[in-house]
């Protein structure tokens, strides 16, 4: 019997498959040759490509998440600073960036943005495939994605390798020409204050989250059984509010730093709105980790700017500062870094 009943039916299926292949290859090629070259320095995949190819021995890279991207203004920190921060990136991504950077014959410092979720290991959430796909010819990238179980078979097929990411690329291309965003060597800074009302909404949301967590914990402590949903909510609230101490990953980072004693690792907890820190009950663990780094590992320098005093008008929301906030923060950080690098034996420089 003829597959699909009749010759005409078979032709229809085959023609659909052929059209699908042509459409996929067509879009793929247009993207490869006309769209991707238009990326600017704020595109995440551009940043990866740049880091892999950059050979300037004096470049000072900044690694971090969106908090880092909107906090470190390269122009304020030095001519050779480039901000490689990208949204959601924590040490799942930073380890790869560090390995790439440390393989270079350099001895300059590396700035790393630190936050309470820096060491959470969630590659499915933190490693954005669209960042890495344009560089998938690089074996190190392939190995990295593979190690983190982020590479699908279909991504090796020409025509569908960018599937699911086209809009994200277009978005990063249009990012520069829209709104009040100002870019500077990889950093994106927002010259915008949402207003007291909206900021209050963001901060209230954080306080309500803390309230909810405490309410559920009290309920549990008093012996009232929690429903399955409540247990799930509580777990999520605890993950999102406390400092996630992942000893294995911290040890991995420390080993990296010790192995490359010629490089200074400047860890910076960027400014946060007080509401964002209010629920972090184990902040003392951040303090002790920073103290341990500052005292026991000579080339890790930890700066805690989390409580850096900024008025509300310097925030974009409760967890990100705006351009004005970034300016004030960078001015202070610049002084500290200069002090540190020139007089590295002065513990007062550390906050």
């Amino acid at each position, binding site marked *: 019997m003829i597959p699909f009943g009749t010759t005409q039916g078979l032709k229809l299926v085959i023609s659909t498959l052929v*059209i699908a292949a042509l459409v996929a290859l067509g879009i793929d090629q247009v993207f490869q040759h006309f769209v991707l070259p238009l990326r600017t320095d704020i595109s995440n995949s551009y940043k990866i490509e740049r880091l892999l190819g950059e050979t300037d021995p004096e470049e000072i890279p900044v690694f971090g998440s969106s908090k880092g991207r909107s906090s470190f203004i390269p122009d304020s920190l030095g001519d050779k600073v480039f901000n490689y921060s990208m949204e959601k990136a924590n040490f799942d991504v930073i380890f790869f960036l560090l390995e790439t950077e440390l393989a270079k014959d350099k001895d300059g410092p590396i700035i790393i943005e630190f936050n309470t979720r820096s060491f959470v290991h969630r590659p499915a959430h933190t490693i954005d495939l669209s960042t890495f796909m344009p560089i998938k010819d690089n074996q190190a990238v392939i190995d990295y994605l593979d190690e983190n179980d982020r590479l699908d078979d279909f991504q090796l097929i020409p025509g569908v390798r960018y599937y699911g990411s086209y809009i994200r690329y277009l978005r990063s291309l249009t990012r520069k020409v829209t709104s009040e965003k100002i870019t500077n060597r990889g950093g994106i800074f927002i010259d915008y204050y949402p207003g007291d009302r909206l900021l209050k909404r963001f901060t209230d*949301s954080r306080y309500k989250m803390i309230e909810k967590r405490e309410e559920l914990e009290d309920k549990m402590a008093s012996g*009232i059984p929690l429903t399955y949903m409540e247990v799930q909510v509580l777990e999520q609230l605890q993950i999102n509010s406390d400092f996630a101490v992942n000893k294995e990953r911290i040890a991995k980072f420390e080993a990296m730093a010790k192995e490359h004693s010629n490089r200074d690792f400047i860890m910076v907890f960027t400014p946060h709105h007080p509401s964002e820190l209010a629920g972090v009950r184990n902040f003392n663990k951040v303090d002790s980790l920073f103290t341990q780094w500052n005292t026991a590992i000579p080339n890790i320098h930890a700066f805690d700017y989390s409580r850096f005093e900024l008025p509300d008008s310097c925030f974009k929301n409760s967890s990100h500062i705006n351009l004005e906030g970034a300016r004030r923060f960078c001015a202070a950080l610049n002084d500290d870094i200069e002090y540190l690098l020139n007089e590295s034996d002065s513990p007062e420089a550390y906050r």
Partner: protein
Amino acid sequence: MLFNSLDYLIFLPLVVAAFYLIPHRYRWVLLLAASYYFYMCWKWQYIFLILISTMVDFYAGIQIAKTPDKKKKRWFLMLSLCVNLGFLFYFKYFNFFTENTSILLSQFNILADFKYYDILLPVGISFYTFQTLSYTIDVYQGKSEPETHLGYFALYVAYFPQLVAGPIERSTRLIPQLRREPKVTPEDIRYAVNKILLGFFKKLVVADTISQYVNLVYANVDGTTGSQLYWAAFLFSIQLFADFSGYTDIAMGSARLMGVRLMENFKRPLWQENHSAYWANWHISLTSWIRDYIYVPLAKINESRYALMVWSLFILVLIGFWHGANWTFIIFGFVNGIVMLIQRSLRYTSFAKIIRSNPYTMHLQKFVNLNLLFLEAVYFRSVDVNMAHKIYGKIFTEFNLNIGELLSLYKFEFLMSIFVSVLLWGTILFNEKLKFKYNLLYVTGMLFLIIFLGQDLKNSFVYFQF
């Protein structure tokens, strides 16, 4: 195995090609093996539940038909009901009942700390359980003959295109189609290809794009405004429709490639004048199942006007509870039922007649009904009742038409969601009026949209959890 995976894109053509290559008498073996493989890709151990259900219902069906003794017939029916509903209760509702019992007892200072069983819900259990139950009940009621071929019966229970999320087929409709050698026409293939593409478009482009906005808003209820929550409720209803009807479209298309016509599950449900019409056109295979096997028997007990109102309300609550073991679903069903009863009681008033007499006011009525559906869906989407009430509180006190405020959070995700919703509406209209000569254009357009706008989130279908 998910429909929206590369695995399925390889699996389906292989099965279809093999289907046409082998003689018809062996096809049931191929399809059964393929169906079990399809299910076992998810969690192989749970295939034993399907096997037990299949064996019990096959045996019960034959025994019910064979024995003249009514009491024995009833015993075999009870056997089937107990096994199937027992599995469903254990895997889906057991923890809910123990949790609530323990909360209830704690009100009387009785500590009953039942163990919580971390049970993974077998995907599709609500669907195939209802499908097999309909078979046994039909045989018991003498509406259909028992299936004597175990292979075909097993295939009826586990037929892969509709195994995990329906449509819930009746044995009288599906088994004869599986038994008969299919006469597949080019029109069948055109229909199948178009349906599969439409399903992928609904799922990968529409549902998965909207889900990103809805998930962000629902994860941050405290930080979002009433307007954002209203639009999230609106978009969630579109997401749910695109997700579920997308699954059904792929199921129907896949089955039609092999000459099987599955029943329509959706007929423009969202744009209807009232809730009765909505439920008559939404998840038709479930609502018709419940009508035939629960509502009609109840109505036979007492068919007074008030009794019918109570039965209708009960049915809607049951439909809500079918979706999941959570009070949100129960309340969702209850509120739907109440709105439906109010709408029914207003149907014959002079005001309603005036509205129906004018096409513009009819559209207005559909719009109002649509908004009610969106608002009710807040219960459906919320994690718990408190969350739903918090959302309602914000929608009713903070809603405004300030675009700046609406776009102050998740602007890109919101605009993309609106864009794909409009695209869905246009596609459905175009699809309904599609002429054969434009089919190639349609196929090309759909493929372009799916490849260019499709999301690679690996999200399973929303209804898989039910």
